[in-house]
């Protein structure tokens, strides 16, 4: 079957152009973009959510960037940066800049709305107990904001994985290479291999983030294990020791 031909050929699973290398490159670019984007977006989101200053910036940034065509942005920056950087940096830097630019708004919006919508009663109680503003932020608002921060991160991750594929057009490594090179060589099974692998990567990473979110979000928020049945279940369960 042409869809899996490339994937089933063992020759394609080693070397500098093999699937593991390309997957690894894709993961590295994605992680780098997400880390740098979070370093920008999380502090801004926390600040705006905590102080409620500059809320319009958040909404504006999200809307404008959604409308910008990512392919156009990458190509534009590559041409602008080409004379500035030598070697591979000429396409790596512009690609990374665009990936970061796309990842910032969802993370920023998620962080902001998470903090801004943290349970008022919990925040007030923390203040009443004498928490300093920093303690309120770190020990009440951020834990309460985690579900929304994670959902922003999920959106950003999907966007970055998808756009990193596109950046193969300007020579960036990663799974997009298979699609772009396969198209140039009229090799559909190679294109399909790239598409299948990148779709799987996106799916696995998405599930991974969901799992991390599930594991780290406080049980007090999700009400997991605290519903009325759990007490009954606990009482009915024979003691195991």
């Amino acid at each position: 079957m042409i869809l899996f031909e490339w994937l089933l050929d063992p020759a394609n699973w080693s070397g500098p152009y093999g699937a593991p290398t390309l997957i690894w490159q894709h993961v590295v670019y994605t992680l780098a973009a997400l880390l740098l984007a979070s370093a920008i977006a999380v502090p801004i989101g926390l600040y705006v959510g905590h102080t409620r200053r500059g809320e319009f910036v958040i909404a504006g940034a999200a809307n404008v960037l959604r409308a910008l065509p990512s392919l156009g942005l990458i190509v534009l920056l590559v041409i602008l940066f080409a004379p500035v950087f030598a070697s591979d940096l000429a396409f790596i830097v512009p690609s990374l800049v665009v990936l970061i630019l796309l990842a910032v708004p969802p993370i920023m919006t998620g962080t902001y709305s998470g903090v801004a919508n943290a349970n008022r009663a919990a925040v007030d109680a923390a203040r009443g107990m004498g928490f300093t503003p920093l303690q309120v932020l770190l020990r009440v608002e951020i834990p309460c904001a985690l579900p929304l921060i994670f959902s922003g991160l999920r959106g950003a991750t999907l966007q970055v994985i998808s756009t990193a594929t596109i950046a193969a057009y300007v020579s960036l490594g990663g799974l997009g290479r298979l699609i772009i090179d396969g198209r140039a060589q009229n090799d559909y099974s190679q294109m399909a291999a790239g598409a299948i692998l990148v779709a799987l990567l996106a799916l696995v990473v998405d599930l991974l983030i969901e799992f991390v979110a599930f594991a780290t979000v406080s049980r007090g928020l999700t009400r997991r294990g605290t519903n009325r049945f759990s007490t009954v279940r606990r009482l009915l369960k024979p003691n195991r020791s």
Partner: protein
Amino acid sequence: MNFDWLWRESDMIFDLFVRHLWLSAVPVAIGLALALPLGWLVHRSGVWRGPLLNLVGLLFTIPSLALFVLLPWFLGTQILDPINVVVALTIYVLALLVRTVSDGLGSVPRETLQAANAMGYRPLSRLLTVELPLAIPVIAGGLRVALVSNISIVSVAALVGTRQLGSLFTQGLQLQFLTPIIAGIVLSVALAAALDALVLFLSRKLTPWERRPA
């Protein structure tokens, strides 16, 4: 900016613009038509609502370029066929709007539903004349996100060879020429802003009872 070039190529650019408009708007129309009944089904599905929405949401995780490549195999089309782009975007719109429609129907206040029942509305006419109109603001919100992100995603299809404004980007890179790239970005942002404003306008026209800040 090389305005001579823009002037000389204006026919070609206009053609790309119209193609771009069609490729991004048609999937939204099809997606909305499919999402209304599906969103209603999900809304009525009780405990299955969460799992169903998660399942639909998974469609959204597939990167667009991957979808453009894989769909020809599933549909038996040529890779250059614009149908692939339309189907791919319809899938994204569906993934977004099924949730929105279900949320919108869920946002109708219980008292309103009870009042409609008491007035003798039958389930179908209650859905069509009470619930759906009240859900319009929420659905329009999802529609705006879908439209605007479609316009950005369509340009990616230039990488598999489907012609639209994205072709200006590939052309610009090949020629190392900024004018088509800037023209492409400006036109697609303008298109996004115009369609966004259109949906907002229609949604306000359709919901005259919504209170607006003066």
